[in-house]
């Protein structure tokens, strides 16, 4: 797959050699000592023995399947109730501002259902291949587990991510503006191996993928893409798919809009034309200002967002050292660079990319700086290895108008106030 270490040069690298650590220690030590002396009273959390330091805690198996700390109860998916008529055909959002690194934990991967979560015993699940094939075939999950497997890390982004922001700033928090994205390592079988068991006829040009849920979700996918890099996954981040992510089987369509990643995958049909299903005609088509709609806009374009600081994650410390971080991704390849501005796009600095860099996976970036306590307008701008540069929202509006709902990958602005609070704004 890819290099595990990122070597992108960054202006904000902290350079600490042995000499700086030893000699510099004296200089900063002076400040630390002053801070300690300045504190009015000593900290009882240190000077007094705490309960957790004296009494025994839970033993093993207190929680056979572990849960997050009780102090992390805000690290949860959130729904925006007014967006949809009910919760069965609805969406919630990944708490991006609470996460770090590039992997999204399974329990907080955003959900999008069109007929609720199907609950299927793997023993009762079947995958059928039919249409323009030599032999229509039925697989059980046991059969699927006998194919050669691969492990791949990909982001999944809903085409409507940031869709509420076309007409201006609307939702206060990156969870709501950008949280229809998650990033997991999938274990599964390359789709081409599975299709080969049925034998694709030469007239076959398209694939219809269909789910077993109450919406029987269905999408047309060009066969070239299906045979190139799509996979049928049964594990995410090492464990079985979560029910809300399509347990026991889902389609993985790298770099393309999330709606195509059919969950509870039960059928693959080969055909010579697209099917023009509901989710590729009345929905997931992009209406332009002139009344014309683009269809089959599959790839997710290059995009980034600063997750901290952000409206749900204000700066809570004073002036001085500050960690600004965020996520960048592209459906066309790897992220090669992320630039950050703190003065509303007047001047940009290249951020430091850290962590594994995989094609069509989330990338983590950091910009470490000294905050002087003044008002900031922070933005990030991603560039992928295909040379695509993340556009501004105004550039997108100039090209498309404001009614397209989908594929808003414009640059996001957070206003950071002197009190550390942050707001979703647009600036001129």
């Amino acid at each position, binding site marked *: 797959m890819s290099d595990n270490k990122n070597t992108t040069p960054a202006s904000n690298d902290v350079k600490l050699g042995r000499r700086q650590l030893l000699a510099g220690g004296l200089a900063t030590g002076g400040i630390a000592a002053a801070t300690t002396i300045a504190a009015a009273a000593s900290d009882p959390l240190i000077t007094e023995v705490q309960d957790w330091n004296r009494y025994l805690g839970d033993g093993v198996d207190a929680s056979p399947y572990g849960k997050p700390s009780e102090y992390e109860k805000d690290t949860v998916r959130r729904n925006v109730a007014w967006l949809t008529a009910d919760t069965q055909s609805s969406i919630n959002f990944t708490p991006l501002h609470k996460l770090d690194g590039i992997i999204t934990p399974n329990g907080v991967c955003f959900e999008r259902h069109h007929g609720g979560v199907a609950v299927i015993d793997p023993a009762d699940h079947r995958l059928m291949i039919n249409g323009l094939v030599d*032999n229509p075939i039925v697989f059980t999950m046991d059969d699927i587990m006998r194919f050669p497997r691969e492990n791949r890390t990909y982001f999944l982004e809903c085409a409507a991510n940031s869709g509420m922001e076309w007409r201006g700033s609307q939702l206060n928090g990156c969870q709501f503006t950008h949280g229809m994205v998650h990033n997991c390592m999938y274990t599964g079988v390359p789709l081409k191996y599975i299709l080969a068991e049925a034998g694709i006829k030469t007239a076959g040009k398209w694939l219809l993928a269909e789910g077993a849920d109450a919406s029987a979700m269905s999408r047309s996918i060009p066969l070239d893409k299906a045979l190139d890099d799509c996979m049928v996954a049964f594990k995410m981040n090492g464990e079985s798919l979560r029910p809300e992510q399509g347990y026991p089987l889902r389609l993985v369509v790298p770099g393309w809009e999330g709606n195509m990643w059919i969950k509870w995958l039960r059928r693959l049909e080969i055909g010579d034309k697209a099917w023009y*299903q509901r989710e590729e005609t009345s929905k997931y088509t992009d209406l332009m200002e002139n009344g014309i709609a683009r269809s089959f806009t599959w790839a997710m374009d290059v995009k980034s967002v600063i997750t901290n600081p952000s409206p749900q994650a204000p700066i809570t410390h004073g002036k001085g050292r500050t960690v600004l971080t965020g996520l960048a991704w592209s459906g066309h390849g790897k992220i090669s660079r992320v630039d950050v501005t703190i003065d509303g796009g007047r001047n940009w600095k290249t951020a430091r990319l850290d962590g594994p860099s995989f094609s069509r996976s989330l990338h983590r970036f950091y910009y470490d700086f000294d905050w002087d306590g003044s008002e900031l307008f922070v933005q990030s701008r991603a560039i992928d290895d295909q040379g695509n540069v993340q556009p501004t929202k105004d550039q997108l509006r100039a090209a498309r108008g404001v*009614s397209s709902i989908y594929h808003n990958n414009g640059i996001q602005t957070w206003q950071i106030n002197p009190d550390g609070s942050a707001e979703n704004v647009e600036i001129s």
Partner: protein
Amino acid sequence: MSKFLKAAFLALTVFCLSASLASAQDAKAGAKVFKKCRSCHTIGEGAKNKVGPHLNGMFGRTAGSIEGFKYSKAMRARGADGLVWNNQNFIEFITKPKKFIKKTRMGFGGLRKEKDRLNLIAFLKAQSVGGKASPAADGSAKNEETKTQTKLLAKDVPVPSHGILHLGRLAQLDEVAAWDIDIRPDGKGLPVGSGKVSDGEVVYNENCARCHGDFGEGIGRWPILAGGHDTLTDERPEKTIGSFWPYLSTVFDYVRRAMPFGSARSLNDNDIYALTAYLLFLNDIVEDEDFVLSKENFTSIHLPNEKNFIADNRKDEAHRAIKEPCMSDCVAGSPKVVSRARALDVTPDAKEGESVE
């Protein structure tokens, strides 16, 4: 393990076991479970065969053996093979009836909780009158059963000849027909059938109006199905079947696979033809209430907005030409806020978020 701990552990085990036995015999709780069965089955004094056979004296009786009741072939065959109901095989059956007897006529999905199954058995035994509920019935038929259910050993399962890795099995024609319900704009996949606008109105009012409104106007945030003509360039476009959808086949396909919401696959093909015809009527695409939509005339109907879809051309957008963006002094003057989320105040209150529970 210390002696003390061992004793405590044993005591705990015994306690748990007796607790589970006690609950296993809860006929009263079983009466509640039986509510799921009583629309088809009766038990006790005067019990008669209804949709399903009466259940008096079931334990110890050969499967499919009540005279005068019309069992499925599959059930009678299992009886002929020597299946006599006992605790063990009844539990297996009631967990997932169609798994234990593949073609049983019993439409019940099964009891998923072990507690429910045990309580149901306690109830059925307590209520049973007549029959021959011999105490030996529990488990006596086991050996015979094992004999009849011969399972292939792994090494004896043949490798199929299809494909490259030879995995999976050939699909049956009726299996493909059951799942292959998609329809294309060229009419491929349309089932035989037809339906009239006025019949569609009845289907619509019964199944659709509560969400989509009497005239397809949409209630609350449920989708609007009709109207919205010439609104696609408006500030708030109304994307309906008549104003936006390119193909009628999508209407039939989607209704058949996913509607009515929460009761998918419950309408028959003629109902869906009628409903589709009615949706054309609500969108002024047909004007005659006697209009009949059928497999034969389906592809002659074109939706008004069909021509207004184009392929993805994002790569031609002007900003795509920018390859090396500006890094310093990019904009003159200081930033001025032109739009704020707080002005709208639609963000959900963070305190109302769900907890990790």
